[in-house]
């Protein structure tokens, strides 16, 4: 992985440089027009938020049941990425909504549940940072709860009356829109993997520092 890291970073940079060009050449949407192009970054960011929630939840479950310190470090890293990508979703969504719906925010099922999911992971990191002894286990339980919320957030627009488009939109994209969309998803996915690796390395270094402090105390 260490050897592949630099080429993958270069590939991610190329994809992110190409993505805006691909988005610019995508056909305009009939009703929303120009503002619909936020979709090409907003939806992949939401996908990464969900992915982070799953990675954090699964790693937390492994930590709880197998006492794996490595899994705990992955969980913390994924939790932080959930906040970053959640922030992107929470900002790009209202920018789109203000133009298309005429309002910045609506407390409907989809938006409220997405906001709550983000808040769960903000709380997760606060607990890990300031929770004191036993914070790892409490945080792991919160991460599991957050992961359990993801399916509800995903289907909220399908089953409740909301302003937000349903999940059908991605599967029924026009041919000219599919290429740029999946290119953006690939770019975000690659970036996510690289950020997770980098962030985990930071946690590994922190664990090494703690081990050295313990060795010095002995």
């Amino acid at each position: 992985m260490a050897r592949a890291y630099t080429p993958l970073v270069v590939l991610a940079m190329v994809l992110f440089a190409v993505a805006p060009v691909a988005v610019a050449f995508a056909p305009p949407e009939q009703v929303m027009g120009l503002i619909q192009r936020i979709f090409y970054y907003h939806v992949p960011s939401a996908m990464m938020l969900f992915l982070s929630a799953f990675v954090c939840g699964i790693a937390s479950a492994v930590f709880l049941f197998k006492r794996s310190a490595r899994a705990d470090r992955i969980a913390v890293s994924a939790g932080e990425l959930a906040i970053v990508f959640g922030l992107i979703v929470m900002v790009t969504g209202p920018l789109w909504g203000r133009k298309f719906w005429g309002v910045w925010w609506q407390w409907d099922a989809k938006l409220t549940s997405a906001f709550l999911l983000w808040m769960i992971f903000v709380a997760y990191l606060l607990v890990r940072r300031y929770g004191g002894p036993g914070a790892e286990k409490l945080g792991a339980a919160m991460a599991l709860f957050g992961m359990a919320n993801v399916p509800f957030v995903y289907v909220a627009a399908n089953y409740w009356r909301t302003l937000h488009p349903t999940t059908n939109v991605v599967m029924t994209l026009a041919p000219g829109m599919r290429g740029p969309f999946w290119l953006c998803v690939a770019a975000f996915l690659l970036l996510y993997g690289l950020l997770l690796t980098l962030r985990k390395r930071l946690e590994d270094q922190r664990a090494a520092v703690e081990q050295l402090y313990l060795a010095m105390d002995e």
Partner: protein
Amino acid sequence: MKRRVMATIGSMLLTAGSLLAASQPPPGTAAQGDFVPVSAVQSVEQLPAAPFLIAAYVVVWLALLIYVWSIWRRMKKIEHDLADLRKRVQSR
């Protein structure tokens, strides 16, 4: 007694009937508070899309760049602490 009761009921019915008739608007006019069709479509506020689109893309790039910078900064500090600790452990 029966006549008085019948007269009272009859007057109440007449009063109710006249009140009901008074509350109905004359045919062909809308009452106060009814829906009134709009004859002309009013102009709707038109916000330009470009500033919102640009702001969204700027936010995405800024968030990712700031996050990468924060990881880099924390990594530098940790690596410095790690090197320092290793020296101290080795010097013992």
